[in-house]
């Protein structure tokens, strides 16, 4: 119980949980774990089971795409206060990219199996979670579209 209370405090500090009803947050705290990733370590790799999502408490993560030449392409970096990972919501629940810690990074991970179980039972909890993911997805999609326009190319 003491452990969950500590995690709940960390969740409350993260922007993702801003304005979430306390009960919902406390329920989700039961699926959460505090983690630390050393610089250069991988948090996820393409094709592996997407069994968690992450809230970045401090540090930076690079979203990478593995290319045949061997030198991974960095598509995006994510920083303190951001969220990473939605593959846990979409079958077949596999990571689409590699995720590497650029700096020493502290995250809170939320276990996907635990989340799925809770939101199947409590639809309102699912709504609380999904309604926070959708604006993030929209923002990322918007950024990706900007990148696709090759803004700085010769026109």
């Amino acid at each position: 119980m003491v452990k969950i209370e500590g995690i709940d405090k960390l969740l409350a500090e993260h922007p993702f949980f801003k304005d979430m009803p306390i009960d919902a947050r406390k329920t989700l705290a039961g699926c959460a774990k505090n983690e630390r990733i050393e610089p250069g370590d991988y948090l996820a790799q393409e094709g592996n089971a997407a069994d968690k999502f992450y809230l970045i408490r401090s540090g930076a993560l690079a979203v990478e795409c593995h290319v045949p030449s061997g030198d991974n392409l960095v598509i995006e970096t994510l920083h303190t206060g951001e969220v990473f990972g939605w593959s846990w919501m979409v079958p077949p629940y596999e990571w689409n990219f590699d995720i590497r810690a650029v700096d020493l990074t502290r995250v809170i991970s939320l276990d996907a199996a635990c989340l799925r179980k809770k939101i199947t039972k409590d639809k309102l909890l699912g709504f609380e979670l999904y309604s926070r993911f959708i604006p993030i997805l929209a923002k990322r999609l918007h950024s990706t579209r900007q990148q696709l326009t090759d803004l700085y190319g010769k026109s």
Partner: protein
Amino acid sequence: MTSKTAVKRSPKTADDAQPDTRPDAPRDAPLDAMMPVPFRIVKRTQELADTFTIELTPASGRGGAFAFRPGQFNMLYAFGVGEVPISISGDPANPKKLIHTIRNVGAVTQAISNMKVGDEIGVRGPFGSAWPVEKAEGSDVLIITGGIGLAPLRPAIDHVLANRGKYGRFVILYGARSPADVLFMEQLTAWRGRLDTYVDVTVDHATRDWAGNVGVVTRLIERANFDAYHAKAFICGPELMMRFTIKELSSRGLKDEDIYVSMERNMKCAIGHCGHCQFGGKFVCKDGPVFPYSSVNALLKVRGL
């Protein structure tokens, strides 16, 4: 850039008739403004694969200062090839050095790129409006730029840094295509090293050896600390990048009149006569290139303008 057909300017309004004495207001060009003055290249620096900087001195050998305001541009004439408008990228407090940073994108810039130290080039200017650095005193200043857009803003950055005590928080956000395309990397690093300036740089894509940010420049805005209700933003970059940036700034509470953009259009006379640079009812060469967003926001939404 698309070329515009020549048109007559719309009749002056009563407001136009009032002399505009603001320091950043557009000024009428002198009568001899159509006559290029020969300058000599005294220094050439290759900044990026397609971008270079030239430092010029009058070919007459008489030296002298070339006074300009941050954001203004000159028409550079490659003899026998043609003219291009290029923003001045030097320090306004050091007007003895006339500096331009140029991206090689067409026949004239290619001809200038091929020039060597000692070669002559024609110069007309300075023309156009300036970044409102005096008006921004007392406010936080946000410089948001991408690609070659950093060059026209460097004089404004130099001015703010030289008068640092007159401003609030100073934020410089810069985006480039890749790490190899980051302009003025050394200066960005030096500015970032100052305790009174927040500098953040991002690239659209990179390989693992880049330890910096990857993502669009608008994503840097959410991490920067500034007071949106007491800030002036100066934006320069591709028009699409400026539109996305303005949207993000507006969502953070910045008012249209506190946002300034530098517009780019084809130019010929640079003194408001030929209509080549027409942008709605405005001439980019004379009324701009720096505009308060509040005066061009409707025009920026018109397709094909």
